[in-house]
């Protein structure tokens, strides 16, 4: 079956099988029409097919009269920063990031460096579905605008502004990082120089080869885990190729669930800044209860929305959140309207430096123990939505049922969540429980029921 998803997360699909040049050009022509002949920033990640998508997008933008600043292979946070810095009108970010091999995607951004919210997506898709684009005459076509500033350097100076750089420098941290052969390595090198880090990086040459599962998770950390103890490293990071997600490895070589990335960032931020009970944190419906725990402890508000970067960004904007994040390892601070794993890295280093305690202690002292199990059930039928709804009958004993973006069942000691992936052909199952055994068992039960329904079709 052909794989193509168009919606809140942009345009996603399988190369050669759904995500065709024609659809990409239509999408970019719609975007170009919406942007009314203004300057657009584009960038790609390391996947091999991304260059084809870039060609499609740039041709479409030129044809609708948009000038293009091409950042080449570039991470998501630097991309968002560049849109604002270069005073562009919007951006198209091309790349598969954490998606499986042979997938690729395009995300639309507005002039403030934020991924399109629901309203802008709607405007864009109305043009896309109408298939009527504002093509311009030959003498009004867009053209390439050369990038004259060193955007990476500018970006690093920008994110180090509110960081206690001196405190980190004196520590001479050893940091191990896996960049998944993406754009992050280059920028991390600049950060390492400024922060006096001994940065040991792997999978740091930009190429389209996926060295491991592209989602930052404990099992993706297996390549850096054995380096931690011999190098006497203070911390390890597994980054997604676009730097929008990260998972951590502690100084004791424990591979931490990606759920800890947001929790640790939040924990440190709440120490770093003074908060009031009016402050807001935003997360999605399937992020660990560690976040609820921290917000309760510090008496601040927690808002939850769908598991989608656009919804998170939009809710953060409307509530002026002090931080937002998702359990998949994404964290958005106030400096950018996008996820920024460089910032997570720097905040973790500052946390260790100021507290004078290793990262393993931050975990054990500050965060409650939960066990989270995530499963992906590949589904090639359009009736994933219907299957998910059937679970109401199975878990009618839940204390709370939340429907909207998928469905969530809450009990005293844990919760189960099912949703259709917005970007892949899959149902995602997430179970969190106080007990590891129960979490695993519940996940197994859900998986069994899914299998039954799927085969009945």
């Amino acid at each position, binding site marked *: 079956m052909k794989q193509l998803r168009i919606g809140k997360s942009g345009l996603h699909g*399988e*190369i*050669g*099988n759904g995500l*065709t*040049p*024609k659809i*990409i*050009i*239509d999408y970019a*022509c719609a975007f170009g029409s919406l942007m009314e002949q203004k300057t657009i920033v584009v960038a790609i990640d390391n*996947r*091999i*097919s991304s*260059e*084809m*998508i870039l*060609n*499609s997008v*740039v*041709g*479409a933008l*030129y*044809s609708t009269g948009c000038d293009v600043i091409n950042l080449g292979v570039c991470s998501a946070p630097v991309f968002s920063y560049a849109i604002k810095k270069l005073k562009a009108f919007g951006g198209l970010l091309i790349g598969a990031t954490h998606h499986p*091999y*042979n997938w*690729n995607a395009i995300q639309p951004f507005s002039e403030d460096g934020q991924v399109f919210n629901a309203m802008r997506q709607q405007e864009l898709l109305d043009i896309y579905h109408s298939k009527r*684009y504002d*093509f*311009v*005459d*030959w*003498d*009004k*076509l*867009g*053209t*390439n605008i050369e990038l004259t500033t060193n955007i990476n350097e500018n970006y690093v100076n920008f994110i180090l502004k509110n960081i206690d750089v001196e405190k980190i420098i004196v520590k001479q941290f050893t940091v191990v990082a896996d960049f998944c052969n993406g754009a992050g390595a280059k920028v991390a090198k600049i950060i390492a120089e400024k922060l006096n880090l001994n940065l040991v990086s792997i999978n740091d040459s930009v190429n*389209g080869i996926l060295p491991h599962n592209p989602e930052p998770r404990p099992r993706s950390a297996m390549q850096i885990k054995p380096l931690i103890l011999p190098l006497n490293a203070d911390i390890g990071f597994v980054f997604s190729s676009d730097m929008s997600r990260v998972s951590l490895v502690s100084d004791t070589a424990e591979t931490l669930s990606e759920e800890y990335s947001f929790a640790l960032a939040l924990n440190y931020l709440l120490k770093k800044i003074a908060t009031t009970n009016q402050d807001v944190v935003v997360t999605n419906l399937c992020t660990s209860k560690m976040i609820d725990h921290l917000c309760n402890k510090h008496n601040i508000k927690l808002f939850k929305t769908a598991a989608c970067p656009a919804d998170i960004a939009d809710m953060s904007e409307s509530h002026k959140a002090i931080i937002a994040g998702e359990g998949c390892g994404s964290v958005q601070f106030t400096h950018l309207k996008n996820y920024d794993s460089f910032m997570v890295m720097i905040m973790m280093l500052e946390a260790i430096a100021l507290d004078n305690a290793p990262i393993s202690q931050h975990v054990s002292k500050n965060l409650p123990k939960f066990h989270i199990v995530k499963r992906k059930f590949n589904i090639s039928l359009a009736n994933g939505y219907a299957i998910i709804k059937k679970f109401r009958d199975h878990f009618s004993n839940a204390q709370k049922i939340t429907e909207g973006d998928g469905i969530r069942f809450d009990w005293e000691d844990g919760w189960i969540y099912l949703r259709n992936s917005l970007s892949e052909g899959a149902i995602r199952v997430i179970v969190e429980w106080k007990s590891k055994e129960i979490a695993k068992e519940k996940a197994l039960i859900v998986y069994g029921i899914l299998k039954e329904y799927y085969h009945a079709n």
Partner: protein
Amino acid sequence: MQTKNRRLKISISGVRGVIGETLTPQLINDFAMAFGEYVAGGTVIVGRDSRSSGIMVEQAVLSGLRAVGCQVLLAGVIPTPTAQILVNEYNANGAIVISASHNPAEWNALKFIGGNGLFLNQHQAAELLDIYNQLDRNLVSENAYMGLRKITNSFAIHQKRIFNNIDTEAIRARNFTVAVDCCNGVGSFYSRQFLEALNCNVVEIFAERDGIFRRKPEPTAENLQKLSDTVREFKCDVGFAQDPDGDRLALVSNSGEAISEQYTLVMTTEHILAEKPGNVVANIQTTKSLEDVVKSYGCNISYSPVGEINVTEQMLKANAIIGGEGGSGGVIFPAVHPCRDSFTAMALILEMLALTTETFDDIYQSLPHYKYFSKKYQCSAVFAQKIIRMFKDEYSNEKITDIDGLRIDFTDGSWLLLRASNTEPVIRLFVEAKTQKLANSKAKAFDEKIMMILAQN
């Protein structure tokens, strides 16, 4: 009538359309994919003329070729003949040239070259169109994507081939002064250094490299006023006028007269046959002066339909030593490559001048001359065919050639051609005779009848 949305022409000459209207990135991309499939993947050369819309078209072409798994060799701005030579040089499976040749600036086009370095012929063009009209494309998945390579020395390869086939020493020894009108086309990138390599003093006009044509792109006598003035001012030995993609050439004599495009082929043929006898092929739109010259050397001439590939194929069959398209200043010299090439034509004209003590004007005046009447009428291709069939019936007792349109050779030595254009929705009437009076009187009957028929519709 020519309406806005009809400005698209898919023919043996390629896919021509107007930017912002019919030649959309979607259409370009789809044709590039179809071509990639047609040549069964592998290496494909991509080149373009200097038109400003070329960068948009190029992106859409690259996306299409890559999506079907072709390896692109990107040559940038190059003359059309250079692309044909590159196909042989790199043993490529084909080439796409982005150029609308002599069409006005709002047009652009894809021209398709097969693995033999020649344009697709009628049958091959039909096969390509058959693939284009299929609903599915054989898009490859990411593991079959090929990296792009840039070729930076394209024209050097072309130039070397020309210099290997002419007496460069004789030309260099004369230290000619020449004017060249590049029409802001590919010539602005290569002509000066090409002529300087032949030790010429070069005066360039319309050599700004922005692809904005500052004169009408057809190198016909009425568009060459500035070149004539330049030749007079700098007392040049000859003036050369190129079209935007560098396949056609017109000449200005040392007296400053812009002579008919027809004489580019007549003069180069005179020069070649004077050295060595051989067969000649020309399209039916060629002046009888050529036939007179060929016969004066006791050689054979045969006529082909209009269109470079038609002439080329007939030349290869007839083992012709030289040939071309008189009416469009297209000289084909197979020793270099069986394609129209303004650079080869310039070299041959210079060689002719170098090997004699006569001036350009002396040689030109000594050739047989005819007067002509020419007119074009806006008319759909279907209606043009009707008109041509009507005249064919009416003049069935004259000597008729109907390989392409209708050519009538009258017994008084005058001849007439009525033919629909391959590139524009027009029908052209061309009459040639020894005197202007005879040409006009022969044309009058046709002109009146065509006007009458068109007025009735």
